[in-house]
């Protein structure tokens, strides 16, 4: 009885460990020997992510089938005829495209039990379309960051296609572009060689969605890209304009600033306002100190010089309001506490 029990437990153990050896073992051999190679493209589908891979891009290919169970099937992947990956359930395969115009032939072979070997092939010709944009808003000189769009500011979107046809790079000015803002096509901005699109932004915090389709004249290559462009709030930052050193853009003055020199010149940088020139513009710069409006130099309205009292210590509340006329939502305020102390110097 003990022996029977032991044998039973042993068999159950083996079943748990290698179920396929008992149930699927025969059919596996049959599929390898008995079925002929099929090239049925309709039974499996091959998808790429990204859908239109550009040059030198990482691409993930995924195979799926409504006939075969890809999770239990042996799958073999080939690049230009060379085996790159194989194994049961290997339904995803990541590879890298070459340079523009370098053709890649991607093949996948499914070794199914019921339908034999199924093959699917895809020829990938890496072409690319990159979309860059820039906003017509203010950032200070020497600024290394990007000028961001604020409400009602102008934005220019530039399409940069890299299309190769018959081993020749196609000039971006010889491509046909169709531009859309949201759902609406812009017929004036679209057309042959129209690789730049200018528009006015919407409201703050929203995204403007810009779509561009770039195609060769004969339609052999076509790529569509959609990009969101966020609309930011304009803002003011204060910097110290030192008489000998110039404006210290390296360090913004935030909240409280203690000044030791006999006078302090504050320079205001109106980030992301639609101002091409800091002084020649229609924006108003209203400087207030402890609630009182100050007279400033109209030819240098972004700056204000404050003299330090000769004795004692104290502080000033300085406020600047900037309003850009013609741009309803382009306003900003900034407060700073300026502290002086003659006793501890």
């Amino acid at each position, binding site marked *: 009885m003990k022996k029977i029990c032991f044998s039973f437990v042993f068999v159950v153990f083996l079943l748990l460990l290698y179920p396929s050896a008992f149930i699927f073992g025969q059919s596996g051999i049959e599929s390898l020997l008995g079925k002929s190679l099929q090239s049925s493209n309709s039974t499996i589908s091959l998808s790429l992510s990204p859908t239109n891979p*550009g*040059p*030198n891009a990482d691409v993930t290919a995924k195979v799926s089938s409504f006939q075969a169970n890809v999770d239990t099937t042996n799958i073999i992947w080939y690049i230009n005829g060379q085996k790159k990956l194989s194994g049961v359930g290997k339904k995803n395969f990541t590879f*890298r495209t070459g340079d*523009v115009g370098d053709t890649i032939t991607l093949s996948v072979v499914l070794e199914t039990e019921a339908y034999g070997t199924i093959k699917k092939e895809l020829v990938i010709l890496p072409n*690319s379309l*990159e979309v*860059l944009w*820039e906003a*017509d808003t203010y950032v*200070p*000189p*020497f*600024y*290394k*960051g*990007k*000028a*961001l769009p604020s409400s009602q500011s*102008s934005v*220019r979107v*530039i399409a*940069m296609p*890299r299309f190769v046809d018959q081993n020749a*790079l196609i000039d971006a000015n010889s491509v046909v572009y169709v531009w859309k803002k949201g759902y609406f096509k812009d017929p004036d901005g679209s057309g042959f060689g129209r*690789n*730049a699109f*200018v528009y006015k932004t919407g409201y703050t915090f929203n995204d403007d969605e810009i779509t561009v389709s770039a195609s060769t004249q004969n339609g052999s290559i076509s790529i569509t890209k959609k990009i969101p462009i*966020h609309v930011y709030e304009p803002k003011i*930052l204060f*910097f110290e304009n030192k008489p*000998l*050193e*110039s*404006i*210290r*853009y*390296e*360090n*913004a003055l*935030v909240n409280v600033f203690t000044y030791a020199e006999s006078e302090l010149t504050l320079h205001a940088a109106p*980030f992301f306002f639609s101002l*091409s*020139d*800091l*002084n020649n513009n229609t924006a108003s710069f209203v400087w207030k100190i402890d609630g009182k409006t100050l007279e400033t130099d109209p*030819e*240098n309205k972004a*700056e204000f010089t404050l003299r330090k009292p000769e004795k004692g210590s104290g502080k000033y509340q300085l406020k600047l309001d900037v309003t850009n006329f013609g741009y309803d939502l382009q306003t900003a305020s900034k407060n700073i506490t300026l502290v002086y102390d003659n006793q501890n110097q």
Partner: protein
Amino acid sequence: MTKKQLYITVGIIAVVALGFLLASYLISRRAAESGVETTNPFANFFPFGKSEKIKTTDLGNTDNETAGEGTENINTEGGGGGFLVLRTVSQKPVAGLFSYIRSGKTYVEYIEKETGNVYEMKMEDMRPSRLSNSLITRVSEAYFGNDGGMVVLRYLKPKSDAITTFILDLSKITRGTLPEDNATTTASDNSPLPNGKFLASGIRDVKVSEDTKGLFYLTRTGDFTDRLSVGSVFDFQKNTSSDVFLSPFSEWLPVYFDGHTAILQTKASRNVPGFLYSFNIKTGDLQKIIGDISGLTALPSHDNQKIVYSESTRNGVTLHIYDRKDSSTKDFFLQTLPEKCVWKKDNASLYCAVPSSFPSGEYPDSWYQGISSFSDNIWEINAITGKTTSVFVPGSLTMKLLDMTNLTLSPSEDFLFFINKRDSSLWAFDLAGGWEE
């Protein structure tokens, strides 16, 4: 002493000794596991506590840990002329610097922001020597070219945002005439003023070539609707400029130039995908290297084969190195911006100033705008093996908080120079050794 008291005393000593042993073991084990260099206070007492001064961290260590407390300076011994490993070269604001070797000695030359004067300092004796009389004041940026024979000075016109770019010819100035006394010297008042020439007005950004013989610079033409970016090359030796690049997109930042290829980065903002392109001057071909990376900022190696770049995240940035040869990318746990790095000559490793923490903000924007400032430590990163090594923690040597920019290595890589963004002062770190205070 009774027997009972003796047992208690011996017991206490045994417990304390065991405690020391356990603490020492745990500290040494923790240091080994974390890979961060730590000082074990018991190291000299027990054999297993002894550790190397430099601990390395393998790639893939995801601990969000920068050079922390307890890290020590690398190489605190050796020559250095009796000066500290960390030295202030100029407390006055500096616009740019250049390091060179003369007669086997390391020198640094720099432009003072306030006066535009050129100063020279031999690192062996740390005495500054003024080489030129003032021509231009309130200089914002300075870039040395032609092996120090010329310097590009960039400054603002009064009450204006217009940038003026002036090239000062330093080839006729006398170098290496150090003073007899200890005082800071001045150039002779009778010495001729250096010559110079203005480059085009409104130059937005510039990059000196790797061999220092050329300058790539960008200007804009046309109004916003029809704007074009024009890239030009100034030849320091021929004293001529030629236009080489034209693009409808104009927010480029040149991050590398070798005379044949310019690497152009789209200007960065945290939530905007950034791109890096290679522009071939001969063929006119503009090709993407990497892209679709939020807040991308980048710094290519001297041979243009590796690129250290950062990507913006919710909490700051992440650091990566992209290898152009095999298109592979290494990720690093260190958080910093490539603007705070410098590649070594071997193109295999680099030094980076790594903030000890990222104040809340949006990066890189907050740092560019001067809203946030960092306090950095120096790390060495090996781009081949992925190992990171803590080199230097300034907090152990100075009370000043150092937000390092313009990192520059001396030709023999014995000194690492940097400008503190907080006050534009110029500093040097003696990589070959020095004396601690």
